[in-house]
């Protein structure tokens, strides 16, 4: 449980941040310059807010009214910086154990366990400058974890990596987010990373937290789309794998009644999965269509229609108690006479739900 309510000014940016994370991964999401790093620096103690309070799991780290302002070294916050900040004169092993020998942190976490979690075994004897960008970030994450933190902050750990390296490290992050056992604040401007990894999403723009809540709810918000852009507008469906159809290479995912068929999803029956579906990959039909190649055609109810100008309209539909987003032309809305409350069939192109956009992730907390 993290409870943040801070104000402050750094440079030209006025920070007004208020959010809570209920455990798991809380993502700070916003464009570059939105103040994400400034907010995390304030939480970590690298910058000082002018007012407000910061507490993690009931421990107050900062409270302007009570005059509490723990120094960085006493906050027990594992900070993974965008630029890794490994100590260049120390080996990977000495970097990883730094908190023990220099910070006198006994650390509750087992060294071998962290090495295993992040795949660092073969890197221990090397120097930071011989590591690739992805390896550096993994070492930085391991170093932060081994300091026995009460909170882990990851500030755009993938921002300096190319696409391939990013995909190398993401599976480690998936595991980390599930197995860390401590709250995590994840900073990113990539909606893909955020939806993949987080439970709670905090939307930040121009130094202010605009809104926060469970990821699936947040994705349905209009103001989020303004930040992500319409091409990235999407919705998140949670479900459970009910069975794997090996003959056709399809996974059947129960999303609370109806089933979706997803090709190439590496999962086993019983796995909780999170599916991100882009609005542009969803079409709507007023009568159940026949003779289609699209396998996922599910009954849904229109909740809202927005989009006053431009050729497209954004339509939110409820589907088995969850929300799905469709992006269709305003002309179609008019021709089909779509209105809130109408029963429609949502056509989801199977190809949009593959490994790239959907992923194994912890179930969204606080959703039920």
């Amino acid at each position, binding site marked *: 449980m993290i409870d943040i309510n801070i104000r402050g000014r750094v440079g030209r940016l006025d920070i007004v941040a208020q959010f809570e994370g209920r455990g798991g991964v809380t993502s700070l999401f916003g464009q570059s310059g939105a103040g994400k790093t400034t907010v995390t620096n304030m939480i970590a103690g690298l910058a000082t807010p002018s007012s407000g309070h910061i507490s993690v799991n009931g421990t107050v780290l900062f409270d302007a009214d009570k005059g509490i302002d723990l120094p960085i*070294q006493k906050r027990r916050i*594992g*900070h993974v910086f965008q630029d890794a*900040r490994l100590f260049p*004169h120390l080996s990977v092993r000495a970097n990883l154990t730094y*908190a023990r020998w220099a*910070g006198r*942190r006994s650390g509750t976490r087992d060294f071998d366990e962290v090495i295993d979690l992040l795949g660092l075994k073969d890197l221990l004897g090397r*120097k930071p400058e011989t590591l690739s960008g992805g390896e550096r970030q993994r070492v930085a994450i391991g170093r932060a974890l081994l300091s026995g933190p009460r909170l882990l902050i990851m500030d755009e750990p993938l921002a300096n990596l190319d696409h391939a390296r990013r995909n190398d490290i993401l599976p480690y992050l998936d595991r980390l987010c599930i197995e860390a056992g401590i709250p995590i604040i994840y900073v990113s401007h990539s909606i893909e990373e955020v939806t993949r990894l987080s439970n709670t999403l905090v939307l930040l723009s121009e130094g202010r937290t605009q809104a926060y809540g469970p990821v699936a709810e947040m994705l349905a918000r209009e103001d989020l789309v303004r930040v992500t852009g319409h091409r990235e507008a999407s919705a998140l469906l949670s479900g459970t794998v009910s069975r794997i159809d090996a003959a056709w290479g399809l996974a059947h995912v129960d999303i609370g009644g109806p089933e979706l068929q997803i090709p190439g999803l590496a999962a086993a029956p019983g796995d909780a999965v999170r599916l991100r579906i882009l609005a542009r990959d969803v079409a709507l039909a007023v009568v159940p269509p026949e003779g289609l190649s699209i396998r996922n055609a599910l009954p849904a109810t229109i909740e809202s229609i927005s989009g006053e100008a431009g050729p497209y309209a954004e339509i939110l539909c409820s589907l088995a108690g969850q929300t799905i987003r469709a992006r269709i032309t305003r002309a179609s809305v008019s021709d089909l006479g779509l209105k809130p409350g109408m029963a429609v069939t949502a056509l989801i192109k199977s190809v949009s739900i593959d490994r790239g956009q959907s992923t194994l992730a912890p179930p969204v907390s606080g959703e039920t």
Partner: protein
Amino acid sequence: MDFFHLQPAEWQALVLTLKVAAAALLVALPLAVLVAYLLARYRFPGHGIVNALVHMPLVLPPVVTGYLLLLAFGRKGPVGTFLSETFGISFAFNWTGAALAAGVMAFPLMVRPIRISFEAVDPKLEAAAKSLGAHRVIAFLTVTLPLAVPGILGGAILGFAKAMGEFGATITFVSNIPGETRTLALALYTATQTPSGDLAAFRLTLIAAVVAFAALIASEVFARRLRGRIGGDHD
């Protein structure tokens, strides 16, 4: 072969010089590291004044520095009186005074490269160390200081060389007393003032050159070994 046989007075000057320079380095180096770090990392009121004061011996005529030391630390000087009455320490006309003069003259030469190397160390690394639980002093000792070692080494060599060759401030402050304050430079000067001192002067010159050359080689070897350990060519 008589040429290579050092006279007792010359031996005395060499040993004294090394002693004076080593003492100057031992005391001045930690202070130079501290001042360089403060100048590199903090902007405090009087930053410019401290910086100017540190560099004064570099721009003042050495005789002026020596005279100021004499005024302050001499037998009748305020600091000198205080030190001799309280601790029984006197810098006047003995080898510790020569070391003081050498240290003061060498100080700016040490501070400069050390400061530059501190400025080259990313302060964010220290923040990372603190986030891992290290107290600021520990963070400095385990991260910033080791990364600045090449610059500190450079400063130490420059300072040692300067301390060994110091002349003007030394002769003004503690005079030219054989066995007490007559270092190589002063002995050489004395030799040149003596009608039959040509040979002695030449030998002293040779000694100074050999010692300086050895110091440079040693520092080069040391720096190379260090670079290998800190980073650079590690595969």
